[in-house]
């Protein structure tokens, strides 16, 4: 799972917006009766493995913020949530949930290594929204339905994280708390 610096400001670039409605229609006509397998395919496992490492990296970033002095227990809860995501993905693909994505960790390390709760929350919100957008893109690519189930169950809670973090960051206007309807357009645009 890549969360490159250049992509983070623009969630649209992460989403890709590759699935135009017309393209979906042609694909739908071609395999309407085709049932997807439950288990992750070989390519699914490869993607999930990177996703697991990303979730572990994000969990460690929140843990870093707590260690730096942030006392709001919400950060510890979100850290635990991301660790659980990494562990659940690991269980799905039969790997050990131990190796974090060092690129993502080092990319955000300076932002999270701080006791400034509002500043960390603002960075964390951006990170959560990037995860949601990336996961939405993946949901349309998996061949097995078990990965679809798992990643969808993860991304809906990550979007809740983003609302909470916006509020902690002091950005409490309804528009900010609600975020964008853009995630839903990933399949339609």
């Amino acid at each position: 799972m890549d969360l490159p610096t250049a992509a983070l400001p623009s969630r649209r670039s992460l989403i890709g917006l590759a699935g135009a409605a017309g393209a979906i229609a042609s694909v739908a006509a071609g395999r309407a009766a085709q049932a997807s397998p439950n288990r992750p395919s070989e390519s699914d496992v490869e993607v999930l493995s990177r996703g697991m490492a990303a979730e572990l990296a994000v969990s460690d970033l929140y843990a870093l913020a707590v260690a730096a002095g942030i006392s709001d227990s919400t950060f510890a809860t979100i850290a635990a949530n991301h660790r659980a995501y990494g562990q659940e993905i690991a269980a799905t693909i039969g790997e050990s949930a131990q190796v974090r994505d060092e690129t993502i960790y080092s990319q955000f390390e300076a932002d999270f290594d701080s006791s400034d709760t509002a500043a960390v929350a603002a960075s964390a919100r951006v990170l959560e929204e990037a995860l949601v957008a990336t996961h939405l893109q993946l949901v349309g690519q998996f061949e097995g339905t078990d990965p679809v189930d798992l990643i969808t169950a993860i991304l809906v809670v990550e979007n809740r994280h983003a609302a909470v973090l916006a509020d902690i960051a002091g950005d409490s206007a309804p528009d900010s708390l609600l975020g964008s309807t853009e995630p839903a357009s990933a399949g339609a645009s």
Partner: protein
Amino acid sequence: MPGRSQPRRAATPVTSTRFGRRDAFRLGGIGLSVAAIAAACGDDRGGDTAPGRVGYAPTPEPLPPFPVDDSVYLRTSTSVEVTIVDVYSELLAGGELGADVAAAVTELVTRHQVLVEQLSELTSAAGGTPWPCANPWMVDRLIAPIRATIAESDDPARDLRNLAISLENVAAATHQSFTRLLSVPELRPGTAGAAAVDSRNAATLVILTGGPEAYVSPAIDGGEVPRVDGIPEQFAITSRFGSLAQFELVVGAPDENGTRTTYLLNTPAENSYIYNELDPSC
């Protein structure tokens, strides 16, 4: 040999037959049992195969034998969104919402209308006809009775806020549950995205009215969800993973025992799908 007398058999007493009456009964019983087993195992059985009914409950109506495809899931998702738009529009028009929620709900109406458009586009892309109405089953079986109960409530504003949060939660769960069922992977980000949006809508309503105390549910770490006056508190982050379980909504005035009315909101099932064969009536 002619003329030669045959040796005569010894006379047999009449009472010493080979089979007694008891034996006849026994053999008859065995024969009947074998016949019953043979009949039960035969392939030409007739008659009603339904289990016997006890009491006077009405006979369940069989579900319509309509096929379920991607269009049905997307039309059903759309119907849930339209249901929410209708409920919110009614509440806003009647001035029934508290000031802390009304502004956000106004914004939510716009957002749900966007989702209706996006899900309708996906329905067309999947080869179906977009559904423009609310979900009739939800309206008749849930919304109407809930609204009637809230009308008699000791705190309608509180109950309407909880209704809005519950509707957002059940809409998110609906889209989430349909995502894996779609046969065309390219359609899945659309429903998963709708789930993400509605999930965040619910969190926002909770934050706006509950503040930091309502960020995280204790249920995440195995704790009990606290209740005030018998009503479960709402939280922005309700569970570690998106939940497909039913949502408990407690509304209305307490009875003489202090008990309020509980409604359980579930994601749509076969009896509330918007099948391709259904025509809109709105």
